[in-house]
């Protein structure tokens, strides 16, 4: 599947600030980083050189899977502002 192509079917109004804030300390030592697999929008990517989680929050579908699967329970997750985020026309 071409995830990017699928995400392109959606209407987004991205915010300038991320509504997803992982804890960089915890991510560095996290063994599995399950958020990367679980996210249906491929929001998370581990940057080996920077030892940091890249968060493409503007693609977020606001499902909450990453929040629940976060092993350290340290991902700061909130809904985007009322006027921001994804719009499902079909759902």
């Amino acid at each position, binding site marked *: *599947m071409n*995830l990017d*192509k*699928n*995400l392109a*079917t*959606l209407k987004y109004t991205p915010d300038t600030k991320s509504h997803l804030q992982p804890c960089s300390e915890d991510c560095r030592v996290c063994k*599995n980083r*399950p958020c990367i*697999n*679980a996210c*249906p*929008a*491929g929001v998370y990517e581990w940057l080996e050189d920077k030892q940091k989680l890249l968060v493409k929050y503007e693609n977020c*579908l*606001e*499902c*909450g*899977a990453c*929040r*629940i*699967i976060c092993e350290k*329970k340290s991902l700061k997750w*909130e*809904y*985007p*502002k*009322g*006027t921001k*985020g*994804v*719009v*499902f*026309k*079909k*759902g």
Partner: protein
Amino acid sequence: MNDKGNKTDVIIVGGGPAGISAAITVARAGYEAIVIERGSFAGSKNVFGGAIYTESVKELFPEFEKSAPLERKNIEHKFAILGENDSTIVSYRNTPETPVSYSVIRGKFDRWMAEEAKKEGVIVAEETVVRELIQEQGKVIGVKTELEDYYADIVILADGVNSLLAKQIGLRKDIEPKDVAVSVKEVIKIDKQKINDRFLINDDEGCIYTLFGGSMLGKLGLGFVYTNKDSISIGLGITLDELSSTGIKPYELLEDIKGHPSIAPLIKDGEIVEYSAHLIPEGGYKKMPKLFSDGVMVVGDAAMLVNNMHWEGTNLALKSGILAGETAILALKEKDFSKKSLKRYDKKLKQSFVIKDLYTYRNLMDVMHNKRKIFMDIYFKKINAFFEMFTSVNGIPKRKLYWQFICDFIKSRGICGLTSDVWAVVKLVWSVLIK
């Protein structure tokens, strides 16, 4: 009214089926109800399979079939057990006068419900996120949004599966990955006539597929197909803990299912018009949060009200909304918004099918979590293997084929394994039927 400005009778957080039904119930009794919805319109953040259930919508809107945006009335439900390349499909078809369910597009249907609610006096404030609940001496007295604080005698939490608000006030603990499924779905545009031909249905008729196995063999997950007027919704839900330590991504599982030889022809030459994802509460009876406290009640997905055995959710949401609304009316009449007063919601819900059904299936998920590798893999494969054997023509005498199948079956599980499986099923059936 008290000394606080922005004060109303009931605030409902979330404009999905649970929230709207609570709001309408309250408004019909002459009280003021404000729905605060974070999306730009009701439904814009919602996803389901799916179908809405006629009986449950009628309770709120007796004439909804005349004006609601419905796609197709479902007349057939197919249960497909997908092997790696083969499948066994059982199908039930019937055209009763009143269909059990209609396929709908939530972006249209939820919006319609919210518009109906507005006509009945409900105020719907869109594009507004409730960030936290305002409490005073342990009682919920209002909500804090990005812009303003609003106060109410009662706050109803219909804020969906993640319900950060129920968590904020301690009604629930953190949800565990095994108690939710992540669902991914595609709406695929296909010519109406092609849909009719492929699913053997007429213009206004719909067909549902429930998909077992396939890319989810051995995993706790199910796929689904629903027919809309000129599109098909195809998706799956997989328990989140399945994705914890493996390299599997939910959309890859969906892609595999779409390519299965029994499914691919249904969606051939279609164009994906929308991809979506959502969480499904799967914890059931044992993982329900506390449903009420001083000044607050929890409804719908926020209360884990999903009967996953029967793919029911919106009907439980609608019913819980109505019952919370009725309880709010009683409380407003008596001017008593205490825990004790709102406990009547919990009681009503327990007396209704909602909690009775969740209780009936209270042990289901435990058994499935323990036995998924067996029930959702070996047995699914065995069902297909049986029909492969039964339909084979290969010069081998049938008696030999039967015994080969039986021996393979016993070998694959062992006597101990089989005994343990049968015992698990008997215990489960006992808990469903007896106590």
